[in-house]
């Protein structure tokens, strides 16, 4: 179970990295096109918008898996491991509920967008598939959050980086 969620989260994160690079390149070519060729990417705004949705929700799983959501750690820092585990459980319950709500409401949005026939302005690209993907990845993240209710950690968060791992 733990291995599967970890693998899927990593794949989603890799997809998010690709989306991020795409975001960066769209912006870059839009500006370059506007200045040097009088030919901006007119669809840049809407494409970036959709990619932002994917970026956030593709990244949600790995962030949740790594307990990357910030909390006020005053109490937990000063508590023994047993209390820390209890608090982590509460946090995981809140996370499960909140992320499930996001997934559910996005799915509802996607349904509306599909029946309304909502499309992007310039490319006339339908919006509902993107929102469905966002909802599905949020749904997967709920699995991680629920798992964390039962296997709560008593560890304090780890550093993302240390000065010496750099070049």
């Amino acid at each position: 179970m733990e291995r599967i969620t970890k693998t899927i989260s990593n794949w989603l994160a890799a997809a998010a990295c690709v989306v991020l690079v795409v975001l960066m390149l769209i912006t870059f070519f839009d500006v370059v096109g506007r200045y040097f060729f009088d030919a901006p990417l007119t669809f840049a705004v809407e494409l970036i918008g959709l990619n932002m949705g994917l970026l956030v929700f593709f990244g949600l799983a790995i962030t949740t898996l790594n307990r990357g959501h910030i909390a006020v750690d005053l109490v937990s820092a000063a508590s023994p491991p047993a209390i820390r585990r209890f608090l982590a459980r509460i946090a995981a319950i809140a996370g499960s509920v909140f992320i499930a709500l996001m997934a559910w409401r996005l799915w509802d949005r996607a349904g509306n967008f599909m029946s309304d026939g909502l499309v992007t302005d310039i490319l006339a690209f339908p919006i509902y598939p993107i929102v469905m993907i966002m909802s599905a990845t949020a749904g997967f993240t709920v699995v991680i959050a629920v798992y964390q209710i039962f296997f709560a950690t008593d560890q304090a968060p780890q550093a993302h980086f240390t000065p010496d791992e750099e070049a």
Partner: protein
Amino acid sequence: QNVTLRMSTWLPPRHHLVADTLPTWIKTIEEASGGTLTIKIDPAPIAKPPAQYDVVRDGAADMAYHVAAYTPGPFEILRGLELPFLSPNGEIGSQAAYDWYDRNIGFDKEFKDVKVVTLMVHGAGAIHSKKSITKLEDLEGVKLRVGGGGVRMSEALGATPVAMPAPQAYEAIQKGVADGAMFPFEGVRGFKIGELTDHHLKIPGGLYTTVFAVMMNRAKWDALSDEHKKVLTEQGGIAGAKILGAGWDRADEAGLEVATADGGMVHELSPEEVARWKEKVAFMNEDWIKRADDAGLDGKALLADLIATVEKYSK
């Protein structure tokens, strides 16, 4: 019994729509109902502009004004009002919009989940720029800030479109990322574009417009008494469109005053130029006709009737 309807808003509170135009219309509703029916505009936005339709459909507010162009797809027939050189000002365009749409399409197709009380369009679309623009050639290489709808139009006219949300227009022009913007004259004041642009091009007939639906939650409408429904029907529809459209025209006049008071130059596009511009953007009419045809309607006849309806209210 007294009823107060909550209206969602997203424009700044000093924007004429919130401060003058909508209140003027709301007052006619209050008077017609003997003070028993009123509309209260929210103090702050609860959702972004494109979400206003959903806000009303799902009942997060009783009413809202929704820009059809902010949600491309569902309201494409109504968006015929946006076609170039069609709507000369707010009062004419708004009345024509309601009359034409109600007669030919009806509100049970594109707006089946809400109750549309009335429609409105803003004044003639104009161009505000740092350098003087009076003919097609002047637009060559000019970076114009446009909303999504204006991208193809400004490309066709030879300008370079810079698409971004309206609130970013000020910074973009100030920085030189854009050399100007498409706005009705109201935007000179409302979005403070007049501070940055010295040249304002009036375009007879209006380069474009934007159509707003003033809508109400379905359940809320059904729950109203027959008297209140009657009041909204009478004060809404074409009558309401006239009042709201006139409000946009008042705001355009105020914007024009600001533009000249700031020392700006106001130009007007000559009839010969209008003809040239019309030719460049004629493809937009064809596109819309095709879209209407695809929806199972007679696009050509619809557009002809729309032009005739505008003509009727121009007299």
